[in-house]
């Protein structure tokens, strides 16, 4: 008699509600999760200069961009509108030694950016965006020429991408800030 009843209700936890519990947790995590991808403009800061003299850079290989306190952009001393910056940078970088006032080769070209203490941040970002866009277009064109594939489609850190990067290295320098 006892034996029989013991066999009848075998100790077993009802597992049918397990799915419900899991669903509840799942919904909680779904709501809480923020899959926001961090996007932004990447840049390498120059290291603090030590006492050794920096290697001399020829004037023609340097494109000075100055953004002043009023949010005006000066390219090598000439005022210019922000949408023009992209074309000017492209001309400068991709000169290949033709114009004696512009860079000798993309590898030598250095874009130097200088700001004032009161430069508005969004103007600076717009300008930087244009510079990045110039390099992006040059790399895209080079990649289409060389491999017939857009630069963005190249696998990251593949030899192909490295080759295009070496063709147009992003040499963007942040000028030393003025004292005071």
């Amino acid at each position, binding site marked *: 008699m006892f034996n029989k009843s013991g066999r009848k209700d075998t100790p077993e936890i009802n597992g049918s509600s*397990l799915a419900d519990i*899991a669903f509840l947790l799942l919904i909680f995590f779904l709501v809480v*999760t923020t899959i926001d991808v961090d996007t932004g403009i*990447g840049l*390498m*800061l120059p290291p603090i200069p030590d006492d050794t003299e920096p290697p001399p850079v020829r004037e023609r290989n340097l494109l000075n961009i100055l953004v002043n306190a009023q949010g005006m952009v000066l390219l090598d001393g000439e005022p210019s509108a922000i949408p023009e910056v992209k074309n000017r940078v492209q001309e400068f970088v991709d000169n290949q030694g033709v114009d004696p006032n512009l860079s000798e080769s993309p590898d030598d070209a250095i874009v130097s950016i200088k700001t004032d203490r009161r430069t*508005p941040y969004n103007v600076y970002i*717009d300008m930087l965006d244009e510079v990045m866009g110039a390099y992006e277009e040059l790399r895209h064109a080079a990649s289409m020429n060389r491999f017939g594939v857009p630069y963005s489609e190249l696998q990251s850190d593949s030899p192909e991408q490295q080759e295009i990067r070496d063709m147009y290295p992003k040499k963007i320098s942040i000028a030393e*800030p003025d004292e005071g």
Partner: protein
Amino acid sequence: MSRFKKKQAKTKQGVPTSAMPDVVFMLLIFFMVTTVLREVELQVQVDYTRAENIEKIEQKRLVSYIYIGPERLGGGQLGETRVQIDDALVDDMNSIRNIMYDKLMEEPRLIVSLRVDRDSEFGTITDVQQELRHAGTLRINYSTLREI
């Protein structure tokens, strides 16, 4: 006809649901792993700027954030431009280099993401950048949204 009927009656109807908890658990574990629960409490106001030529930061674990913007005071008022690292406002600019240097020692491939309010003036950012250069954390990223 009757033969067909018999066959159909024998086959079991309905999708077996016994594997559903497993599937749900798998999804659950995926979301648990990907969730980043700890979001810093912002003490400064940050409205991002927009830009077109932006890149994604794939490895979120390498990123350390610096927030720069007007301080949030009570009652929706905004104060002076301040710098916030992790949960605290930075009072002394010179302390940034020590904080960032410690972080760099923990994670040598550190990327510093600068989340700056669009209306800030660049002087503060210049100061922060100088500190970052002293700390040796040279890889930075200006956080922006995608231009629509």
